């Protein structure tokens, strides 16, 4: 009996997911009949690519490169004539077999590092790329430091710290639905359900 809640969650999610899967115009009633994409007819595409990889690369590049003239727009979104020229140029470069980093380098030598939304890693941009990781490590040390200090203050967990804030016992009399209280009940419930099993 005690397992009902868990099963309910599971069924709820399963049915939700199933309905999401089926919601696609009732076409794909099950996973097995899921139709793969029919690609767009080649003739009507404005830009023609040899393969999917090339297409992905092109669209990624025009997303990640900045239009030099515009306010703050990438090449894909800009209507400026220069953006159009640069898109064409990138399309040509991609067709000629340039790799992504080669195209970026090509644009950088002409328009400066300004056009790269992800600045190349260099001594100048080291702070930009390293600081977040450094901060994570620093944060880890700070947390460990706080925990260590706490431990040195109170090795004995049995004893309540008299901190002036309501502890478990007082809380109980004030408000039966307090977090601690409920947490304890959760534990009890889980205990009893595991006992049921045995």
């Amino acid at each position, binding site marked *: 009996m005690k397992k009902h*809640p*868990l099963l309910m969650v*599971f069924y*709820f*999610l399963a049915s939700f997911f199933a309905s*999401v899967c089926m*919601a*696609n*115009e009732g*076409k794909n009633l099950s996973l097995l009949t*899921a*139709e793969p*994409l*029919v*690609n*767009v007819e080649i003739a*009507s595409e*404005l*830009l023609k690519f040899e393969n999917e990889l090339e297409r992905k690369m092109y669209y990624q590049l025009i*997303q*990640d490169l*900045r239009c030099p003239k515009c*306010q*703050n727009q*990438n090449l894909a*979104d800009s209507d400026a004539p220069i953006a159009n020229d640069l898109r064409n140029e990138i399309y040509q470069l991609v067709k000629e077999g340039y790799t992504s980093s080669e195209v970026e380098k090509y644009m950088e030598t002409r328009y400066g*590092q*300004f056009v*790269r*939304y*992800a*600045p190349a890693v260099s001594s*100048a941009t080291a*702070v*930009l790329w390293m*600081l977040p990781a450094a*901060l994570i490590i620093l*944060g880890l040390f700070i*947390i460990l430091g706080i*925990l260590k200090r*706490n431990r040195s*203050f109170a090795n004995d967990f049995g004893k309540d*710290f*008299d*901190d*002036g*804030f*309501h*502890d*478990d016992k*007082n809380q109980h009399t*004030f*408000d039966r*639905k307090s*977090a*601690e209280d409920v947490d304890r009940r*959760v*534990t009890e*419930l*889980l205990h009893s359900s595991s006992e049921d099993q045995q």
Partner: protein
Amino acid sequence: MIPEIGHFALLLCLPIALMLATIPLLGAVRGNRLWMNAAPIMAAGQWLFLLISFCCLSSAFLTDDFSVKLVAMHSNSKLPGYFKFSALWGNHEGSLLLWVFILSSWTLAVACFSRQLPDDIRARVLSVLGMISLGFLAFVIFTSNPFERLLLNPVAEGRDLNPLLQDIGLIIHPPMLYIGYVGFAVAFAFAITALMTEKLDAAWARWSRPWTNIAWAFLTVGIALGSWWAYYELGWGGWWFWDPVENASFMPWLAGTALVHSLAATEKRGVFRSWTLLLAILAFSLSLLGTFLVRSGILVSVHAFASDPTRGIFILALLVIVIGSSLLLYALKAPAMRSAVRFNGISRETLLLANNALLTVALATVLLGTLFPLFMKALNAGSYSVGPPYFNSMFIPIMIPVLILMGIAPYIHWKQTRISSVQIRPWVFSLSAAILFSVIGTIYMSSHYDHDFSWAAALTIALSTWITVTTGIHLILKSSHQEGIISGMKRLAPSYWGMCIAHFGIAITALGIGLTSVYSEQRDVRMEVGQSISLGSYRYQLVDIRGIEGANYRSTQATINVYMAEAAGSSDKTIAVLLPEKRLYYATKNVMTEAAIDPRLTRDLYVALGEQLDDGVWAMRIHVKPFVRCIWLGTLFMALGGVIAVADKRYRKALLSSKPKTLESVNSAASATASVDVLALNPTNENN
């Protein structure tokens, strides 16, 4: 005449704000009750005069009074009425007036709903709000007067509102955003008060929490509306660009999110006091920083206001006074705010600490990325751009542990949890569910969208499932009750419901972000009238192209019928009719692309009309965006959670029972006020 009345009312606010900023504070310092109690009246007066001022400006816009410069520059007689009204805040001066008006409304709200606060605390909080108000009123009046007249060269017709802003999104996005931004001023004022009085206890946290939650909820909705507006209005199919101005609103949100959590720990356990104060200061400081970045013209953004550098200097000075002095106060007074409370390594405090650390690093990363180009410019080290590829690669890895922790923290007790007592079964269950859904979901999505197996999508689905299932199990376990689950659920505290709903919202948003990023498809195609092309599981047919007339624009509109792809002959059932447009606005001569969208929960079909290539032949950009709706749906849940949490009894009780009469309220009031009187933080506590 009306604009002059508005201007006069605005000018009157300045001395009122000056009085509000000084008299109650002096009263609190000297113990003069009369001076302290004058605060609510001054707050009300300030609000009233700003309301008058605001109404006068609205009326100038609504009646097309082009002798007012602002109206002449940003409105037009052909503009529909609701856009005339929203044009008020579609520019620097008007939006700043809105900013100040919202601040005064928050001030009035604090004055009204804080009767249970000790007089001196309330007086100080209102004074701090008055100081901020004073600074911004001075800014409006001296640098950005919205009522300026065009006396020498009156014009017959206004220049019109930027067409991008002629949209329902602009009517509601800025007010929501400002209510959120400016709302953090209240938490800020409480923090400054705590520093001034060196008093920070559970009661203080209980007072600050509802204000912080509501501001946070509004900011969440405001940001989401901005994202939604950019998505359908800009015609690029993107919903987040990591533009400096977007980041300027996102940073206070990150700080606010950290604050909401750290306040919870401060209220329940008295920990992180000094940190909570810093976050409260930070959240509002970042709002001000955002205001500076947007209005000073110091950086290039799609959204920035046209601006002149003297204004920038003024806000900068304001920034130095407000943020500088509060951080200085913090540095001097925070030692008195040391938390004396200890907690075990395995405790909810530790997890909230981790949550805060991660959110702070995320915040620092966004700040760094936004300002990096400015640093390099200042050092004459060249022009750099920092954009989506940087932010995505940095931000997402930081957020993943946050999402994981979200499923763990609710199960861990405050203060200490013995490892032996931790139940791992809900986690095992949730993890299995996460893996199961992740595998099934990714395989399904990949086959449906003809995509390689994507680890990013698998991780997204796993994380969303993980959060949902852990939260769901916790909810169900917690609501188990002799009389059944439903009555158990009814007994749960609203603050707990709020948490669950907000976390569920995060799961939905994360799912939307992940899936739409991985599976979105985009094609640029040429289409002739009558021709149809297949893309994905859909067939698009260009039925017609025609010209139409709008109120203040002329437009070319395409009619595109969408059918299911593979049933070419059999089913001609139209799924959707899309009407993308290209508009030419008369007044500004701007050409705007209006994308057409067929929205569903599971996917959007998004078509934007491009250039005419030939007679009857047009370029089109077609997007299929799976689950993009979930991004905004989730934020609604988040905001809802934030608001529901405020309905918690303990905030209302604190409100109603400053003088407890019944036995029940004696108990609750005891918990609320005990700490104020007896347990107010005492520096000597620290050494126990």
